[in-house]
């Protein structure tokens, strides 16, 4: 056996099992769903489907679906915004003001909850936010006679639960880009007379932008597609694109409509990722250029 043939066999033998698995469980299913989304009925149980674009047309024609999509996008934007507000300063403090083993310990503490069950963490917020729960009691202890808090099963409750679930992403990505900034760049800016605020805006923030954008994408994408969190914490205000897709597959059984809505969700996700790509790539390339 020649050397190239042996090499080829090794490559195919090593990669084929994993990629055949991914083909069966990721790529073929996505293709199957695309097929389903243009059928009148699911081709299961002997029913005769016909080709149609009515599910996509319904999305464009009915205000209900447009509102729904906007609700999900707004949820994604709100959660991302609050993750930036909470996560960036925390990452900044961790990367710039904490040293040594303290930093390692804090870093671990921040990412640790992230690896515990998301469903369980959302459930834990129902205990904290419910009427007569911890938050309710705390508010009434500070302000006796305050009205009922009434926050559980609302939009804010959903946002709180999702920020709690995803803020470690933002801290992680911002921390990685902030701690990579060369201290001498900041010292140079300060010694040339720039104020602390100006140094931050003109040096630190642009250099940490890739981390910020990466974190925003990593948070926005799953939040737009979330259904379990709005379902548990959102009550009647928790109807989102994700929950309607869930219903199509688990209770209404209109799979073709569910498939079409899933593809619209996928289109939003891909658009966001493509929009973020130049920032990530351009900034990374820029950073490499500056350092060489």
């Amino acid at each position, binding site marked *: 056996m020649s050397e190239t043939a042996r090499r080829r066999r090794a490559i195919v033998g090593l990669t084929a099992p994993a*990629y055949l698995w991914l083909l069966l469980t*990721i790529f073929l299913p996505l293709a*199957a769903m695309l097929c389903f989304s243009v059928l009148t009925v699911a081709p299961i149980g002997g029913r005769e489907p016909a080709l149609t674009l009515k599910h996509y047309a319904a999305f464009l024609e009915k205000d209900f679906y447009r509102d729904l999509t906007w609700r999900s996008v707004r949820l994604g934007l709100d959660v991302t915004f609050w993750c930036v507000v909470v996560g960036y300063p925390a990452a900044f403090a961790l990367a710039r003001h904490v040293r040594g083993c303290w930093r390692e310990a804090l870093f*671990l503490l921040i990412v640790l909850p992230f690896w515990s069950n998301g469903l369980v963490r959302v459930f834990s917020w129902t205990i904290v936010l419910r009427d007569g729960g911890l938050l309710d009691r705390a508010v009434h202890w500070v302000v006796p006679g305050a009205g009922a808090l009434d926050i559980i099963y609302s939009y804010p409750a959903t946002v709180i639960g999702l920020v709690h679930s995803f803020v470690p992403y933002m801290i992680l990505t911002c921390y990685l880009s902030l701690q990579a900034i060369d201290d001498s760049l900041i010292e140079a800016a300060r010694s040339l007379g720039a104020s602390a605020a100006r140094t931050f805006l003109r040096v630190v923030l642009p250099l940490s932008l890739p981390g910020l954008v990466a974190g925003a994408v990593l948070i926005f*994408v799953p939040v737009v597609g979330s259904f379990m969190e709005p379902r548990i914490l959102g009550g009647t205000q928790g109807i989102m694109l994700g929950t309607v897709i869930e219903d199509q597959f688990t209770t209404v059984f209109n799979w073709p409509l569910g498939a079409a809505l899933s593809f619209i969700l996928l289109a939003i996700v891909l658009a966001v990722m493509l929009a973020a790509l130049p920032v990530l790539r351009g900034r990374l390339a820029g950073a490499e250029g500056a350092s060489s």
Partner: protein
Amino acid sequence: MSRLSQALLGAVLVFLYMPIVVMVVMAFNRSALYELPIEWDTVWFQALAGNERLLTASMNSILIALANTVIATVLGTMAALAFARFRFRGRNLMRLLLLPTITIPWLIIGTAMLVLFFWIGIGRGLHAILLGHVALSIPYVVIVVGARLAGFGPALEEAAASLGASPWQTFVRVSFPVIAPGVVAAALFAFAVSFDQFVISYFLSPPGVSTLPVEIYAAIRKGFTPEVNAISAIIILVSMGLMLAFARLYRFGGERGS
């Protein structure tokens, strides 16, 4: 560290841990309505021990996670070895193809699997759930093991080969001992991915068969049951323990900091 940084990081940690601590503490409260003051009791853990549905679901979760760990770690490590040791056409494309699994919302992947599996007769069930979990775990294994492989060049392997070792001997005696910590870390990761996975399992579980997260979701939607609190407390402690072990092996982030 400055006062402001301390206060800020302290507040973030309180935000992150407060609901988890409250939940674990409430699991030991006798009152089903979370009434205060707390009457310490293990009544919900005892109730849990008698809850067949939750116990069966827990066993399913553990079995699937174990099978997933073995399959995903083997397949992922093989692919990582190919990417690290060979330059070939399509290599970059193949690595790019790992990303959809990580970046596309699980809701879309889960419903798409449901559609295909029904269509071609795989159907729903524990086997379908295992198929899905392995798919989610493979990319992480490739990345984690790949990072470890990138840390040592092919020089050691070439030395072994030139001294007459067969490719298999080289792998067992030279490569594997070096990448072993990465492989163990990847295996822990794969276990956690599967054990915590809810969305995929939810769409692929037929009535009557479920994993722990699916069972918990059903219980939460039906109205709360305090046993869920008890099992949730156990899950949180187990998965955090697993991740502490992972962090010790892999030291992600830590090394850069010091």
